[in-house]
C-alpha cells in the first residue's frame, strides 16, 4: 500500500539503488585474502566447542575464576598459558592431539571479558 511518504521518497530511493562498482584493487585484495585463508586453515577449522572445553579445563586446573579475579590477573594468566609448552598441556589433558598456542589464548582472554 503506497503512502504519500512512499510517493515522495521513491525517486530518492531509486537514485540510491545503483550498485557501486568496487575498484579492481579492492577485488584483487579480497581474492588474495580468500586464497590466503584457504592456505591457513589450521586455526580457523578448529570447532568452537572443543576450544572452549580446553579453556575450561585449563581454568579449572588454575583454581577457576575466583582464583583469577581481576582483569590484570586474567590477562597475565592468558600470557602464562600462551607461554606454556603445548607438550606440558597435552600431557596434563591426556590428549594425543597437538594444538597451537592460538587455540587457547584468545578464548581465555575472551572469557575474561576481553582485552
Amino acid at each position, binding site marked *: 500500500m503506497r503512502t504519500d511518504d512512499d510517493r515522495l521518497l521513491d525517486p530518492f530511493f531509486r537514485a540510491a*539503488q545503483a*550498485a557501486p562498482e*568496487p575498484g579492481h584493487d579492492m577485488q584483487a585484495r579480497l581474492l588474495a585474502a580468500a586464497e590466503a585463508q584457504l592456505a591457513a586453515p589450521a586455526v580457523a577449522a578448529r570447532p568452537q566447542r572443543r576450544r572452549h572445553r580446553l579453556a575450561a579445563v585449563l581454568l579449572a586446573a588454575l583454581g577457576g575464576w575466583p582464583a583469577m579475579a581481576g582483569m590484570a590477573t586474567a590477562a597475565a594468566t592468558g600470557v602464562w598459558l600462551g607461554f606454556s609448552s603445548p607438550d606440558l598441556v597435552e600431557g596434563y589433558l591426556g590428549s594425543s592431539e597437538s594444538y597451537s598456542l592460538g587455540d587457547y589464548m584468545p578464548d581465555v582472554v575472551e572469557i575474561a571479558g576481553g582485552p
Partner: protein
Amino acid sequence: MALDADGSVSDEALLIAYANGDAGAARILIARLTPVALRFALRMLAGDRAEAEDVAQEAMLRLWKAAGSWRQGEAKVTSWLYRVTANLATDRLRRRGRQGPPLDEIPEPPDLSPGAAEAMTQAARAAALDAALAALPERQRQAVVLRHIEGLSNPEIAAVMDIGVEAVESLTARGKRALAAMLSGRREELGYED
C-alpha cells in the same frame, strides 16, 4: 568458467565450494557480494565512500573466515553479510562520533547539458537521501535501507536485524515519515516532479 556460467549456483553453494578449496568460487562471490556490501555500507555511512569500502572489505574478509564453519541451510549468505556490514558500520560511527553532513550543506549541482543534469540530479538526490538517512536513529535507517534500497522482504529484514516482522514495519514506517519530512522541503531544487 564452467562453475556458475548461467548465474544459477547459490551463494551458499559457492561459499561451501570455496571452503573446500575452490578459489574460483571466491572470485564469483566477490563479484556478486562486494557491490551489495558496498552499497549497503554507503547508505549506513552517509555516502562516505572511503569508510564504506573499508567496512565492505572487512565484511568480506570475515566471510572468508566464517566459510569453514558455515552451517548450511540456516541463514542466507546475504543476510549474514548485511548483519556483519551493519555492525561494522555501527562500530565505525560510534568510534568517530559523527552522523554525516548536515542536510543544508549538500552542494548545489552545477548547470550542465540536459543529459548530464539528469545524472547530477540523481547524484544530488542520493546525496540528499544520505544526509537525511544519517539523521535517523540507526535501526530505522537500517530497516528503511534494507526494505527500499536493498529490496528485502520484511521477514528477511527481521532475520537480519534479529527482531520481529511487526518491529520491522514499525521501524520502516517511522523512518520513512522522518525522511519525508526532511526531504519534502527540497523537492524543487532536487528536480523532483509530481
